[in-house]
């Protein structure tokens, strides 16, 4: 069917409100992050262009060379390859589309060229020792984020999987358990954080009192204010709040496995462990990978819980990466904050895409 231009504009008007909001609140900020990352200062009026200085502080000169070099060469080579292919093949698509693609390609070559230029400038700094001042505190905060993620991946997900297996196998009243376990993810981080904080704080001392009653005085610590335990407390609270997620998704996955497979295996003489390893795990693999990715993305970006549970303290020991970005923004370093956000985003994207690739490979086998 062919449409007149007027019809097409009418059709387009349906998506216009979504597109306007999306452009202003997602697309514009997305690209503005990259611009902001090249500046120092707090906002539009007081920005100062500093080039890749923010990234040098985060990555050291060598990191800047690697990052800007690789990004620049991708931005230059990809459109060049495309142009090369187009030269041989017959033109496809409408004229407008081809022109837009060409403009985008040339723009990307330009940006890539600037990246490579700055990469070369940073290259000379590798050998001067004065430029090697890295923001160690930032990498420590990233490390804390991944420490919590490690807890979430192991403790939280194993707990969720074990619970899902129990409910799936033995009990028809799984609905009740599902309702109870999913209550915590439905409530907000702030409520959970404040509640756990008031249970753990040493002054009214509710949990210490409880442990005393049980005769476990030796277990009592200052969980929130002792630098040794604060981060682990945060991690365990996060796991406690989040395991319902994994539980519900894994349970849904388990219930799609047909029971006939287990019966066939039982007739063939497989015991429980063999059935688990040979049937449950392979069939659940896609679901498990999904839960792992969701866990990573959810845990690294956690901010509300550390903010109210331990308030980033003691002595910054629970300042996770996003909390640090927020603090940086509050201290009028919007530029530096967005360069930190870019690095974290790159880490997350690479991680989740690698996991997806691996799971696709495993699926083929």
């Amino acid at each position: 069917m062919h449409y007149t231009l007027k019809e097409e504009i009418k059709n387009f008007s349906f998506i216009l409100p979504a597109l306007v909001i999306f452009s202003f609140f997602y697309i514009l900020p997305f690209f503005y992050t990259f611009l902001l990352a090249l500046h120092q200062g707090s906002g539009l009026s007081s920005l100062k262009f500093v080039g890749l200085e923010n990234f040098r502080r985060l990555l050291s000169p060598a990191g800047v060379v690697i990052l800007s070099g690789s990004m620049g060469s991708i931005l230059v080579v990809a459109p060049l390859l495309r142009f090369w292919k187009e030269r041989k093949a017959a033109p496809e698509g409408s004229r407008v589309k081809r022109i837009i693609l060409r403009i985008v390609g040339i723009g990307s070559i330009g940006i890539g060229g600037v990246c490579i230029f700055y990469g070369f400038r940073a290259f000379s700094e590798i050998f001067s020792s004065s430029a090697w001042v890295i923001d160690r505190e930032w990498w420590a905060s990233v490390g804390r984020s991944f420490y919590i993620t490690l807890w979430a991946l192991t403790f939280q997900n194993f707990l969720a999987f074990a619970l899902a297996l129990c409910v799936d196998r033995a009990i028809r009243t799984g609905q009740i358990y599902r309702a109870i376990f999913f209550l915590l993810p439905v409530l907000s981080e702030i409520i959970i954080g404040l509640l756990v904080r008031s249970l753990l704080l040493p002054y009214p001392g509710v949990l210490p009192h409880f442990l005393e009653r049980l005769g476990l005085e030796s277990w009592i610590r200052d969980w929130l204010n002792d630098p040794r335990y604060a981060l682990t407390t945060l991690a365990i609270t996060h796991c406690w709040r989040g395991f319902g997620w994994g539980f519900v998704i894994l349970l849904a996955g388990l219930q799609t496995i047909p029971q006939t497979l287990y019966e066939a295996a039982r007739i063939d003489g497989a015991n429980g462990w063999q059935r688990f390893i040979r049937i449950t795990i392979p069939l659940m693999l896609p679901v498990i990978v999904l839960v792992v990715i969701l866990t990573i993305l959810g845990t690294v970006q956690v901010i509300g819980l550390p903010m109210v549970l331990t308030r980033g303290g003691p002595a910054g020991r629970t300042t996770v990466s996003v909390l640090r970005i927020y603090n940086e923004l509050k201290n009028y370093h919007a530029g530096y904050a967005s360069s930190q956000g870019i690095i974290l985003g790159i880490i997350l994207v690479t991680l989740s895409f690698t996991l997806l690739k691996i799971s696709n490979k495993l699926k083929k086998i």
Partner: protein
Amino acid sequence: MKYKIKKFFLLFLVHTFLISVAISCIFPFLWMINSSFKSNSEFISDYGFKFPHKIMWKNYFIAFCQGKMGIYFLNSLIYTFVSVIGIVVISSLAGYSLSRLQFRGKNFIFFLFLAAMMIPTPAGFVPLYVLLKAVGLLNTRVGYCLAMVNVGLSLSIYLYKTFFDKLPRDLEDAARIDGCNRLRIWWHVILPLARPATAVVVIFNALNVWNEFVLALVIFSNRNLMPLQVGLKEFASSSVGLTNYTVLMAGLTIASLPIIIIYLMMQKHIIKGITAGALVG
């Protein structure tokens, strides 16, 4: 016989495990509600483990007025209501056009929304803060609602589009023959048919907006405009919340009890809606 004992023992173990985890989930909330009815001195003497001698409604009164919980609660209601309605209207329009109507660049636009779901932006609030400040939408209700509409947009559009793709076109064609234009088809035919998709979108986004924290923290500095989550944080670090634990518990109960009740009433739908939303994203 031996087999039966073994099975019984296994069942016993499994139940113990499940029940102990379930208790660890419920008990803190019961404790919270119980101690919110106590006076502070009573709370300190028995740690909130015993039932209150005399029910202290005063705690709730203090939390509502002095702690401004009433204002925060009302704000949260407004933001959730406005944002969810905005999301449903805008994304069903967009989903309908992406699924049924023809225009140039359709696939590209859909790809943009998909890409927005795939790419994590852990520091998305930084440029948003700067841009909103530049436009003067910082510290306004409008700015926050628009930002929250945007947060829910891509997922909702995806849900609506996939729903409409599966929907048969016959009813629309009938309406068109009867002389409906596109907008009236959307309002009279498409939206009523899309009720299952709308339910998922509403549940997912309502909880998302209600529990949202970072954007509200960044956007609002005026305490009278803050939604519940940021307000709770302010309340907990204010003089009332820091010294008076039972009032803090009353505040937490105000914030969580409505959600718990709504959740228990429509638990099946909520779990279905949220997992459907999360599995897509």
